[in-house]
C-alpha cells in the first residue's frame, strides 16, 4: 500500500485519472487558444472542448439543452450566481441547518442588508432534514428553497426528490447544492424536480480545481436570474449590453480552458465506468460501512446515523483526544491526509453537536481501498494506545 493515504476527497478528489492530466497537458501544448473569440481552427477546437463539457453534464444530470449548463469557477461561484442573481427585495427563502457556508453566507448577506427574509429549518442531530418541516415553513412570499444534497460534514443525503415535489407544487424555485454528491450519487434534475443545480468539477466528477457549473432546468426561465458579472463573451460584439441568451448571459471573460479540458476527460472517465455512478456510489458506501463498523469497535465516536442514506464522508472523534492533535499525528506520523475542525459549515456542526471543536473528517473516494481503511484503523489504535 502506498502512502500517504488520501482521505480528503470531500475537499477535492485525488488522484485524478491519468486521462485528466493528459487532457490538461494536451490543451496547454496542442490547443492553447481562447474559445468563442477568434475563428481559427484552434479556437474552434477550444470551443468544442467547452461544448463537450456542457453536453456531458447535461446528459449526466438529465437536462435536454446543453446551453443551460453555465460553466463557473467552482460550486461556490455557481451558488452565488443562483442566490445573488435570483433573489429580489422582499423574497422569503428557506434553507437548512446543514448548509455549507457557500449557501449560508450569500443568504445571510442578503438577510442582513434587509433584502430577504430567511428561515433555517432545523435538521435532527444526525443532520437529517424532514421535508414536512420545509412545507411548514412555506409562506406566500417564499421564492426559494436552497438545500444541500449531501453534507460535507457527515455525508447525510437529504430527501431531495420529496422536497422538489413540494417546491414544484407550490411554485417555489428549488436550488440544490450538489457539491458532495455530483458524480458519486445519482442525480436527475427532472425526476427530482430541481430548478437550479450547483456542482463542482473537481470533486467526484474528477476534474481539476477551478471548475464548476450551474445547471438550469430546461423549463426555468433564465431571465429570472441576473448576471453577476458582465463583459466580453465573444458574441453580440456589436452591442454594449450583456447578451440575454445562454450560456453567454452568465459567462463573461475567458474561462478556465485547461481546467475544463481536464473536466471533460473526468466526465468521459465516469461515463465509461462500468455500472456508472450507481456502481461508484455502491463502492463508496461499502468503504464507508467498513470504516464505520471497524471504528465503532475501537470506541470512535461517529457523528451520523448509519440508517440514513449517505455519501462516503464520515465525521468522527477519538474520545479524550483533540481533533487537531489527531489530525497532526495522522498527517505527520501516519501519512493519512484528512480534514479536521469546522468544515466551513458552522450550523451543521451545531446541529451535530460538534461545535466549536469540530470533527475529524474522512472523505473516501473512488480510488480508496479496504487496505487503506485497515491501515487507518491501526493508526487510530496506535494514537489511542500511545497516550
Amino acid at each position, binding site marked *: 500500500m502506498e502512502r500517504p493515504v488520501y482521505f480528503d476527497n470531500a475537499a477535492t478528489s485525488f488522484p485524478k485519472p491519468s486521462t485528466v492530466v493528459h487532457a490538461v497537458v494536451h490543451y496547454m501544448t496542442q490547443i492553447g487558444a481562447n474559445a*468563442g473569440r477568434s475563428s481559427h481552427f484552434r479556437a474552434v477546437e477550444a470551443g468544442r472542448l467547452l*461544448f463537450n463539457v456542457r453536453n456531458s453534464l447535461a446528459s449526466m444530470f438529465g437536462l435536454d439543452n446543453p446551453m443551460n449548463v453555465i460553466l463557473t469557477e467552482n460550486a461556490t461561484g455557481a451558488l452565488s450566481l443562483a442566490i445573488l442573481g435570483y433573489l429580489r427585495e422582499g423574497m422569503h427563502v428557506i434553507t437548512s441547518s446543514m448548509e455549507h457556508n457557500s449557501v449560508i453566507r450569500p443568504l445571510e448577506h442578503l438577510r442582513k442588508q434587509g433584502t430577504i427574509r430567511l428561515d433555517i429549518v432545523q435538521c435532527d442531530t444526525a443532520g437529517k432534514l424532514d421535508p414536512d418541516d420545509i412545507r411548514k415553513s412555506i409562506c406566500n412570499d417564499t421564492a426559494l428553497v436552497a438545500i444541500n444534497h449531501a453534507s460535507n460534514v457527515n455525508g447525510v443525503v437529504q430527501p431531495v426528490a420529496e422536497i422538489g415535489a413540494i417546491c414544484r407544487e407550490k411554485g417555489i424555485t428549488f436550488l440544490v447544492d450538489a457539491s458532495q454528491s455530483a458524480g458519486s450519487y445519482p442525480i436527475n434534475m427532472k425526476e427530482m424536480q430541481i430548478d437550479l443545480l450547483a456542482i463542482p468539477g473537481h470533486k467526484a466528477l474528477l476534474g481539476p480545481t477551478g471548475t464548476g457549473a450551474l445547471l438550469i432546468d430546461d423549463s426555468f426561465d433564465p431571465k429570472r436570474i441576473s448576471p453577476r458579472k458582465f463583459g466580453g463573451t465573444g458574441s453580440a460584439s456589436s452591442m454594449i449590453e450583456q447578451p440575454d*441568451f445562454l*450560456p*453567454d448571459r452568465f459567462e463573461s471573460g475567458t474561462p478556465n480552458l485547461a481546467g475544463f479540458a481536464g473536466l471533460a476527460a473526468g466526465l468521459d472517465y465516469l461515463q465509461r465506468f462500468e455500472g456508472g455512478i450507481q456502481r461508484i456510489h455502491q463502492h463508496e458506501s461499502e468503504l464507508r460501512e467498513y470504516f464505520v463498523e471497524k471504528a465503532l469497535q475501537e470506541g470512535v465516536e461517529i457523528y451520523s446515523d448509519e440508517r440514513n442514506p449517505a455519501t462516503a464522508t464520515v465525521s468522527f472523534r477519538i474520545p479524550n483526544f483533540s481533533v487537531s492533535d489527531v489530525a497532526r499525528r495522522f498527517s505527520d506520523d501516519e501519512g493519512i491526509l484528512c480534514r479536521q475542525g469546522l468544515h466551513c459549515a458552522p450550523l451543521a456542526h451545531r446541529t451535530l453537536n460538534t461545535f466549536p471543536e469540530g470533527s475529524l473528517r474522512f472523505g473516501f473516494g473512488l480510488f480508496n481501498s479496504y487496505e487503506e481503511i485497515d491501515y487507518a484503523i491501526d493508526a487510530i489504535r496506535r494514537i489511542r494506545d500511545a497516550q
Partner: protein
Amino acid sequence: MPNSSFVILFHSSNHAIWAEAALKKACINCKMIPVPRHLSSDCGYCVEFEHTEHDHVLDILSHGGIEYDRIAMSK
C-alpha cells in the same frame, strides 16, 4: 463545399458548435468556417453545408432547439 452551399449564422459560438455537433451526429457533411466577408454576424464562425441538405438541416436545428440567427448563401 460546392458553390451551391449555405451557411448558418449564429449569435454565439456556443450555438455554432452545438449545431455542428448535432449535424455531424446526423451524418450531414458540414464544416465550421469563418463568417464570409459579404455577411456579418455577431459570431466569428458559421457552419457551412450543402444546399441539398437544407431541409434536413432545418429539421435538426428545430428538433434540437438550437438557436441560430439566419441561413445565407455562402458565396
